[in-house]
C-alpha cells in the first residue's frame, strides 16, 4: 500500500511540475469559417513557442463576440465586424475598447446543379438577388440566360438553398446582396441569420453542398475553400467593373487590395462588391478581436507576438488551405495598429 501511495505521489509530483512548466495558456473563441487556418497557425506557433498554448473554440462569430465581451476568453474571432452597438457594449463593460485584426480572406461562391448544364455560368448581381428574393423563379429567365449565351438553360423551377444556422458565410452573402440590391437591403438585410424570402435551409457547408448535389435545378452558396476542396462547380459573378470573375485566391486578394487604399483605422470594412477590374465581388476579411488592454502583461505580449508572427510567417500557410493572403498594405497597417494593444 505504502509503495503504491509513494509512487502515486511521485507521478503526481512529476505531472504537477510538467503542468506548471507548460506555463501560458490563452483561449479564444469565435468564427468557424477560418477555423482550419487558425488551428494550423496555433499548432505551428506552438511548435516554435512550446511554452505557449492557444486554445481556440470555433463556436461561431456571434458566440465569439459574446464571449470576448463577457471576458470569458482572451480574444475573439468573427467573420462580420462588430457593429457600433456591440463596440459600445464592450467599451461600457470594460472601460476600454476592442480592436479588429484581419487575418485572412475568404469568399462565397454561387453553386448550382442544373441537369444537362456543365459549363460555368455567369451571374449578374441582379440575377442572384432576384433568385434569392424569389422574383426569378426559372432557370431560363432572361436575367440568367442573358449573360449565358449558348447555354441551354431549362425552364425548370429554381430550388434555392441557403444555410439554416447562423454563419459567417451567410453574413458575407447577405452583405453582398444588401449592397447590390436596394430591395434586399430594405426587405431582408444582412446578418449571420436572416429571414429568407425563399428556399430550403441546410445545416453547414457540407449540407448545403449535399443538398445542391442531390437536388436538380438547385442554386445556393458555399465557401470558396469548400467548393475547391470538394470539386464543386460554381459560377462567375459580375463585379463592379463589369467583368465576370471566377473566385480564386488571386481574385479574392485583388478585392482586398482594392479596399486596402481606403482601409479605415479600425479595419472594420466590408469588401463585398469591391472596386477593381479583377476583384471577386463576394469576398470578405475575417477578423481576430483583441482587447485594447490586458491586465496580464505576459498574456498581452504572447498575443501580440502571435499576431506579429501570423502577419509575417503565418501568411505563408494560407494558400495551402485555400485562404487568400492579406495584401501588404493591410499587413503594414495592422503592425502599426498592434501598438495600440496595451
Amino acid at each position, binding site marked *: 500500500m505504502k509503495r503504491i501511495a509513494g509512487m502515486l505521489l511521485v507521478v503526481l509530483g512529476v505531472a504537477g511540475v510538467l503542468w506548471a512548466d507548460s506555463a501560458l495558456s490563452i483561449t479564444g473563441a469565435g468564427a468557424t469559417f477560418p477555423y482550419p487556418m487558425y488551428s494550423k497557425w496555433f499548432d505551428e506557433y506552438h511548435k516554435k513557442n512550446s511554452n505557449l498554448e492557444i486554445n481556440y473554440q470555433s463556436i461561431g462569430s*456571434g458566440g465569439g463576440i459574446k464571449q470576448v465581451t463577457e471576458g470569458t476568453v482572451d480574444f475573439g474571432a468573427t467573420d462580420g465586424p462588430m457593429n457600433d452597438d456591440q463596440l459600445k457594449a464592450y467599451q461600457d463593460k470594460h472601460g476600454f475598447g476592442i480592436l479588429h485584426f484581419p487575418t485572412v480572406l475568404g469568399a462565397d461562391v454561387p453553386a448550382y446543379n442544373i441537369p444537362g448544364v456543365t459549363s460555368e455560368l455567369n451571374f449578374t448581381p441582379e440575377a442572384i438577388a432576384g433568385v434569392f428574393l424569389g422574383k426569378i423563379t426559372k432557370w431560363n429567365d432572361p436575367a440568367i440566360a442573358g449573360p449565358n449565351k449558348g447555354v441551354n438553360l431549362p425552364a425548370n423551377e429554381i430550388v434555392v438553398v441557403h444555410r439554416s444556422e447562423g454563419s459567417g458565410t451567410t453574413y458575407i452573402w447577405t452583405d453582398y446582396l444588401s449592397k447590390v440590391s436596394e430591395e434586399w437591403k430594405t426587405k431582408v438585410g444582412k*446578418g449571420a441569420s436572416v429571414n429568407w424570402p425563399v428556399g430550403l435551409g441546410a445545416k453547414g457547408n457540407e449540407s448545403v453542398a449535399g443538398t445542391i448535389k442531390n437536388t436538380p435545378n438547385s442554386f445556393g452558396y458555399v465557401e470558396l475553400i469548400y467548393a475547391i476542396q470538394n470539386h464543386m462547380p460554381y459560377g462567375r459573378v459580375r463585379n463592379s467593373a463589369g467583368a465576370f470573375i471566377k473566385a480564386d485566391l488571386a481574385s479574392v486578394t485583388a478585392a482586398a487590395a482594392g479596399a486596402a487604399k481606403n482601409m479605415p483605422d479600425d479595419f472594420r470594412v466590408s469588401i463585398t462588391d469591391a472596386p477593381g477590374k479583377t476583384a471577386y465581388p463576394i469576398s470578405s476579411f475575417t477578423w481576430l478581436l483583441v482587447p485594447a488592454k490586458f491586465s496580464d502583461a505576459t498574456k498581452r505580449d504572447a498575443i501580440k507576438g502571435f499576431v506579429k508572427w501570423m502577419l509575417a510567417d503565418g501568411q505563408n500557410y494560407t494558400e495551402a488551405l485555400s485562404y487568400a493572403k492579406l495584401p501588404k498594405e493591410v499587413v503594414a497597417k495592422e503592425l502599426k495598429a498592434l501598438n495600440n494593444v496595451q
Partner: protein
Amino acid sequence: MATTTTIVPSAGPVAGSRSFLSRLREGDEIARMFTFLFAASVVLITVLLVFELWQGSVLSRHKFGFNFFRTSVWDPIFEQFGALPFIYGTLVTAAIALLIAVPLGIGAAIFLAELAPARVSDTLEFFIDLLAAVPSVIYGVLGIFIVVPLMRQYVQPALKLSLGFLPLFQGPAYGVGFLTAGVVLAIMVIPYIISVSREVLLSVPRDQREAALSLGATRWESTWKVVVPFARAGIFGSIFLALARALGETMAVTMVVGNTPMISSSLLSPGYSIAAVIANEFTEATGQLHTQSLIELGLVLFILTFILNGFARLLIVATSKRGSGMGHV
C-alpha cells in the same frame, strides 16, 4: 399500495414504532434521507430549468407577449419573432412519426414477446437496443443520403400522383420536409416502442394467458384480448417516451426538415421545428432579443412537452378505469 407498505418495514406503522434514533443507528433513516434528497433533486432541477428559461426570456416575453404564439414571422435582422411555424412543425413531425412508429412498433413488440421463439426474440432485441443507442446525427446523415433522395424520386411523386387531390400532398417534391422528418423520426423512435412494449408484454403474468387459453381462446385472441389490454399502461408509456424523443429531437430533424419557418397544409413542404431552430441560431445570435426569443422557444417546448405528458397521464387514468385489473404494470 396497501399491500406493499406491510412488506417494506421502513415506512408505515412498523417503522413508526421504533424511535428515530434507533432507525438512524440502523441506517434506515440515513438511507431514507439520502434517497429522498436524490428524488427531490429531480424536482429541483425542473424548477431551476423553468426559472432559467423564464428569466432568460424577459425581453421577448415583454415585447411580444401572447403574439409570440400567434405570429409566424421570424426575422433576426428586423427583430420580429413569432413561434407559430416552429410549434406547428414540431407537432406535425412528431405526429407523423408516431402515426408510423406506433403500429409498427407495437406489432413488432407483440411478435417478439408473444409469438417468436425466445432465441429469435432475444437476438432481435439485441439489435433493437443497438438501434436505440445510435446517435441521432447518424440518423440525420442516413436521412440526407438515403431517405431524402428516395422521398424525392419515388415516394413523393407517387403520393402526388395517387393522393395529390388532398391538400396534404401538394406542391413541389423537394425530398426534405415535414413528411421526411416524420419518417426519419419514426425510424428513430421505433426501437424505444418495441423495446419497452416487449418488456411490458413479457411481464404479463403467465396465468392470464393460460386462463384465456383454457377458456377456448386462440393464441391470437389471448394475445390481443387479454395480454395487450393488460399491458396497456406500459405500452402507452413506451409511446409517450417515443413522443418525448420526437418532440425534442434536434440534429436528425434539422438535417431533413428543410429549415424553413413555414406553415403549410402540405406534408411535402419544408418546415422547421423548435429544437432545430434553437440549435441552428443560438450560437450566432448576437442581438439580445434574438437570443431571448430562442430561450423563450425553449420554454415553449418545455410547456408543450408538459401539456402532452399531462394528456398522457389523463389518457392512462381514463382507459385503466374503464377496464378491470388494467394499468397495474
